[in-house]
């Protein structure tokens, strides 16, 4: 581990823009920080965007699903003693079960209702799920250990970097590609895409639209659960963690375009880059750049970089 520090220590004093420009090693590490952060957020925000894209519901409870994913990963790994892999699987399965119940018993009744009604329902869910989590896991904070093989750092030649964060850099694009291939290259994907355009026409063609809706809601929620499980080794499962992540996810999907997979992917990367490089340039103004971009996007292109403007009839 000694060599790790030597690799990273660059004796630069207080960093800043000049350090980023003059020190490629430092800039490279910030690049990896940006990508790993962006991919962590992408995995979570992709579900939020997917659900909005098809169901047209802005799901505030998405953060609560993320929190449940983190807590389930804790229970599976630390309480039951299974490996981290099973923790992630357990979170996905847990969220599939939870979201099926929620979609069938609550969400399906508000698809045709106005947005305010939908928002109120999802907000109520935030409060209910927060209390349910408190009943199950209490108010303590927990720590989920990194998988043993990924607890150290990997030598990338230029610098060492935490292996687990590198995994996120890989997993994000893999999940993106899998979702893209499903939507663009499979029959069910095309049907799902059609559901975003005109659900009535799809029903008229004999497609079971409610099943599509349930499937999309479950898939989106499972992504939140997987995101929570993947984040749990470096974001301790605690009460209230849902409230933090949901803001960041909304910033990402609004920048990228609600309902757009590409938009969410690019939005997450933009968020990661402006947060990390912005924090070096303006150390105590970490959020300034991300929210400035959000503001500009809302003013110039309110439907987001990759979104589509809502037209009448949609």
């Amino acid at each position, binding site marked *: 581990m000694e060599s790790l520090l030597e690799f990273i220590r660059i004796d630069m004093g207080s960093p800043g823009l000049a350090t980023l420009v003059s020190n490629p090693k430092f800039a490279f590490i910030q690049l990896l920080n940006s990508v790993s952060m962006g991919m962590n957020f992408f995995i979570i925000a992709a579900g939020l965007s997917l659900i909005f894209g098809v169901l047209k519901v802005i799901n505030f409870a998405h953060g609560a699903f993320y929190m449940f994913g983190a807590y389930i990963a804790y229970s599976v790994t630390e309480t039951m003693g299974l490996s981290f892999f099973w923790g992630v699987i357990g979170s996905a399965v847990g969220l599939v079960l939870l979201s099926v119940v929620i979609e069938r018993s609550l969400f399906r009744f508000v698809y045709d209702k106005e947005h305010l009604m939908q928002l109120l329902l999802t907000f109520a869910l935030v409060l209910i799920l927060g*209390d349910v989590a408190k009943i199950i896991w209490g108010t303590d*904070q927990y720590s989920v250990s990194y998988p043993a093989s990924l607890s150290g750092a990997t030598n990338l030649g230029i610098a060492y970097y*935490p292996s687990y964060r590198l995994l996120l850099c890989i997993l994000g694009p893999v999940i993106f590609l899998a979702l893209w291939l499903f939507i663009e290259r499979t029959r069910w994907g095309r049907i799902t895409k059609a559901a975003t355009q005109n659900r009535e026409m799809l029903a008229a063609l004999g497609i079971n639209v409610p099943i599509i809706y349930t499937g999309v809601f479950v898939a989106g929620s499972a992504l939140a659960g997987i995101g929570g499980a993947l984040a749990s080794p470096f974001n301790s499962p605690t009460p*209230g963690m849902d409230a933090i992540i949901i803001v960041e996810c909304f910033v990402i999907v609004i920048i990228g375009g609600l309902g757009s997979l590409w938009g969410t992917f690019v939005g997450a990367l933009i968020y990661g880059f402006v947060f990390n490089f912005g*924090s070096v340039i303006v150390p105590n103004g970490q959020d300034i750049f991300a929210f400035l971009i959000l503001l500009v996007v809302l003013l110039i292109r309110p439907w987001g970089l990759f979104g589509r403007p809502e037209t009448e009839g949609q």
Partner: protein
Amino acid sequence: MLRLIRTTGPIVTILAALSIAQAAEVKIGTLYPITGGGAIYGSPAMIGHRMAIDELNSQGGILGMQVVSVERDTKLNPATAAAAAKEMITKDGVNVIIGGLSSAVGLAISEVAKQEKVIYIATIPKTIQMTTNRRHDYVFRTASHTDFEGDAIAQIAKQLGAQKICDIQLDYAYGHDLADGIERGLKRHLPDAKKVLDLRPKLRATDYNVFITQIMGAGCDVVTSGLWGPHFVDFAKQASPFGLFQQIKYITGGEIGSQEIAGAMGEDYPDNVWANSYELWYHHSTQEHKNFQEALAKRLDTIETPMWPVLALIGVRMYGAAAEKAGSLDAASISDALKGMSIDTPVGPRTIDPETHQADTGQFWGPMVKKEGVPYRVMDPITYIPAKIIE
């Protein structure tokens, strides 16, 4: 006329009885976060608070009156806390407000106490402002404060021979005030040390990689910090793979030595951390602590008890003793009684300074080490650093 008397008589009697019943109890307005992120500390604090209420009532209450606790959730939000404090005073008619968690919340409650002329005893908020430039007749603190904590950090930095220091604090009142407290402490104890980096992640930050890599690049030999609770857990978990704790010593306030953190992190707790705690369940500095810890353990059905209950307990005890001394529930009289008030607590005697309204609350400090057969880190050796700043 007779009919009027017949009709109104019972109503007047009931109202009078209700008024006597109301007067026969002391209402303590209790403010802790019991939902959301702050519940980690608010919920155990509430347990200590209720223990103290039970204790008072079993001893005959305050001035012979039963003590009741009117409890509200601050959600760790200053605006929510201020609104709740106002409501408890104006609607519920509480005699005192006790609690608060986070410096921003403490300052917000203190402003309401000042306006409404109701005593507020801050049991957890540490910002120095509360007992300096924003002190008033009705605010008192039984917690430590950021200057005591900063001075203790500087003393440890001196022991460790720190030369280049990186400081990382949360970007709100507590973090800023602790940074100032450390700065002043360093001038007293280690004037030759150089601070090479100041970082301020936001409250409830989740990703610290950008700060960790800046610390590692800055060439410091000691990190001073006040990242508390989940902030520390996340920071440590993210910094460990970078090897930060292998090479750089980490001195931290924010009660990172408490059982809540050590127990939760278990094997993940990093090396080279010097931390503090108000109370340690395994360190019986007094017989009363042993009794308190056993009672708490019984109440929680656990051996390893959390640290936060004792803080809430001390606040209630302090108020009870002051009211008895004042011989009334009048806020001005109790304010006078609190000045110079001394009580015994499970962690030793506490006296409130009549000038600053600040209790002489020191803390236990020490390195967090592994012990054979113990699945979490413990503080060893334990040093009590008293609440005393020698210029």
